């Protein structure tokens, strides 16, 4: 608790004790001590608990800010005391109790908000406090803000990486979970880029910084999350509009309630019963404070955004969280989003020898090539990839000792521009390339039934089989699409620049509804515009991309989701929601978090407004007294705040 809160707690305790003591004192000595002694005695707890409210109300009137809650509470309680004085009932407890509960409510609110603010900030406590810089051979801890680009910093095991950089020395594993929600550690070695906010797990690392602290990933993320709640959602806008109208409306009704019915009775010649109607009007005033709504809605969003960021889902504003919950159409980029965007040998077919032998020979023929296709063949060989009889890759060999590409075995390498390569490997004439190369050599080849890039191989003029090289679908892609449908997405579309058959094959494999293939970057924007026109009314179209080349599409869609965006500034800028790692399952998780949060927001709106309306009706009918009114007010607020904090918990939303 802060000092202010502690002081308030003491005031509440003292006032409560005094009030109860006085209550019993009246019972014991009520017949011997008379007014106005009790009145003055009761003023002590009343002023103890309410003096600041009265002062604020006075200042409010001076500054022409009449309809604030201080004014309302002041009028309601002073009115209650006045009625007690006029009726000579001596019941001052009510006014004190109303003030007391109001203050308890305020205290709880400020405590709960402060606490959740702290909790949520702790979740995002990835801000590094210092950087180790070597000065005259000794390590010194300095403020990361003061470290210049290109400085070599040391990160010890267990420390956070303070600034983005490149590893100069050392091998270690990094815990990226604070940034990505991903629990599997990542290995780094010299020349690898590392991002700030990760925790160095085991080895000593020396990094050369590539950015200033303020431009580093960790600073950007913190900045983004902290400012996220500044972008207000429609629900929040609705609530502030509502609060603006609600309080004056209730005050005017209260005035009408106090004046009109008694006048009506007066005209009809009946007893006006002023006291009763004024009391009902004062009850109105107590209910009129819109606190529960005004606090719980932004708190729900804040908790939702905080909970999401713990899962590696950064939402850049409350409005985007709202949009996310309404996503019904989701369009994807293919490469890098649903597929890994790296080419791998995915099969060897019609081989005239052992599959592994063919791979070995081809890898040697491609030994000097740096083409991505050639690289993937070299990599498959070096990693000891094994294949089944039917050519599917099965596993990787464990024992890789002595496995290398041996230049001695290769000679006469000729690249045949755009078609392939010929070389002499182990004394055999080997040709590897596309169908044009085979045609030019007059070799009969067999077409592949699978989709991808096919490298045909001929040895000594005879066909020796082909290697299938394709982009690998992410292992969670299929599950991700199913999870999206479960989360209420009705249509999934894949947009790709790739050939039609490639796109369709991937879409079919993972269960995407629609494919638009062979799109140039500009066509993707047009495609998204078409989808926008076709989507159901009031629903949201989200586009998921990896942030490379698709910034215009990210901005054009209702909601842009960038994936695997760690370190990609352009994507973080362009997108509304950023998934820190590249697991497509996170999209559905993000939608579920958003839905839960919006559910809580709606619950709070309906609950708070509902209870207030019921109390207003009961108050007008004379059923509810001021006690009930203040209980309703504080109770609703407490429940709404507790409900709002639920948005922080996301564990059970993971699939």
């Amino acid at each position, binding site marked *: 608790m802060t000092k202010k809160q502690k002081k308030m707690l003491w005031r509440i305790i003292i006032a409560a004790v005094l009030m109860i003591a006085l209550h019993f004192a009246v019972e014991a000595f009520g017949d011997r001590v008379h007014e106005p002694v009790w009145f003055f005695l009761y003023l002590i707890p009343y002023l103890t608990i309410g003096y600041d409210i009265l002062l*604020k109300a006075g*200042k*409010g009137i001076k*500054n022409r*800010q009449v309809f*604030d*809650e201080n004014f309302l509470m002041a009028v309601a309680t002073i009115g209650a005391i006045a009625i007690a004085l006029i009726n000579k009932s001596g019941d001052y407890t009510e006014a004190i109790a109303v003030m007391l509960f109001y203050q308890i409510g*305020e205290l709880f*609110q*400020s405590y709960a*908000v402060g606490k959740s*603010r702290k909790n*949520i900030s702790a979740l995002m406590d990835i801000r590094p406090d210092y950087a180790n810089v070597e000065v005259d051979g000794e390590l010194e801890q300095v403020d990361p803000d003061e470290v210049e680009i290109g400085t070599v910093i040391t990160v010890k095991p267990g420390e956070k990486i303070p600034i983005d950089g490149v590893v100069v020395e050392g091998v270690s594993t990094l815990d990226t979970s604070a940034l990505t929600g991903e629990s599997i550690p990542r290995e780094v070695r010299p020349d690898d880029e590392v991002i700030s906010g990760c925790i160095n797990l085991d080895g000593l690392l020396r990094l050369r910084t590539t950015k200033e602290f303020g431009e580093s990933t960790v600073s950007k993320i913190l900045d983004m999350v*902290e*400012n996220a*709640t*500044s972008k*207000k959602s429609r629900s929040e806008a609705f609530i*502030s509009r509502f*609060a603006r109208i609600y309080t004056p409306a209730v005050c005017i009704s209260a005035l009408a309630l106090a004046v009109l019915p008694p006048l009506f009775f007066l005209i009809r010649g009946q007893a006006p019963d002023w006291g009763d109607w004024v009391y009902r009007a004062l009850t109105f005033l107590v209910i009129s404070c*819109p*606190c529960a709504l*005004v*606090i719980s809605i*932004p*708190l729900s969003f*804040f908790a939702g955004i905080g909970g999401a960021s713990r899962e590696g889902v950064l939402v850049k504003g409350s409005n985007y969280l709202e949009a996310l919950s309404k996503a019904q159409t989701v369009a994807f980029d293919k490469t890098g989003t649903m597929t890994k965007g790296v080419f791998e040998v995915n099969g060897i077919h019609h081989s005239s020898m052992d599959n592994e032998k063919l791979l070995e020979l081809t890898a040697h023929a491609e030994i000097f090539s740096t083409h991505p296709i050639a690289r993937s063949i070299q990599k498959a060989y070096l990693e000891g990839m094994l294949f089944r009889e039917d050519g599917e890759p099965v596993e990787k060999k464990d024992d890789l000792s002595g496995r290398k590409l041996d230049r001695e075995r290769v000679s006469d390498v000729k690249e045949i521009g755009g078609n392939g390569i010929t070389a002499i490997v182990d004394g055999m004439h080997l040709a590897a390339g596309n169908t044009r190369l085979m045609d030019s050599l007059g070799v009969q080849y067999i077409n592949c039934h699978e989709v991808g890039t096919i490298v045909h191989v001929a040895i000594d003029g005879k066909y020796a089989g082909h290697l299938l090289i394709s982009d690998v679908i992410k292992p969670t892609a299929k599950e991700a699409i199913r999870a999206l449908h479960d989360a209420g997405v009705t249509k999934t579309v894949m947009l790709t620049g790739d050939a039609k058959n490639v796109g369709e094959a991937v879409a079919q494999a993972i269960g995407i509804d629609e494919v638009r293939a062979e799109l140039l970057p500009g066509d993707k924007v047009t495609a998204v515009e078409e989808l926008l026109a076709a989507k159901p009314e009031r629903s949201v179209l989200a586009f998921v991309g990896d942030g490379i080349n698709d910034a215009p599409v990210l901005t054009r869609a209702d909601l842009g989701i960038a994936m695997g965006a760690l370190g990609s500034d352009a994507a973080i800028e362009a997108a509304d929601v950023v998934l820190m790692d590249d697991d497509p399952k996170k999209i559905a998780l993000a939608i579920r978090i958003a839905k839960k949060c919006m559910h809580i927001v709606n619950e709070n709106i309906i609950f708070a407004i509902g209870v207030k309306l019921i109390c207003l009706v009961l108050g007008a009918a004379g059923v509810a007294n001021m006690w009930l009114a203040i209980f309703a007010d504080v109770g609703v607020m407490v429940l709404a705040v507790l409900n709002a904090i639920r948005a922080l918990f996301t564990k059970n939303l993971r699939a």
Partner: protein
Amino acid sequence: MKKSYKIEVDCANCANKMEDAAKKTPGVKDAVVNFMALKMNVEFEEGADPKAVMKDVLKNCKKVEDDCEIYL
């Protein structure tokens, strides 16, 4: 020009009121109060002097909510 200020305020409704008051201050193009982060982001009009404008903003905020603070 945009600037961000740390603020101190107790209730969310008061934060809304501060936002309104700040928006109405001459020289302020737009203002957003973020109650959860206790921050006020102010966008100034072209050619306005942030320091002078913020003094007025603070004065106006104090008018609507006595118990608030903006750390300039």
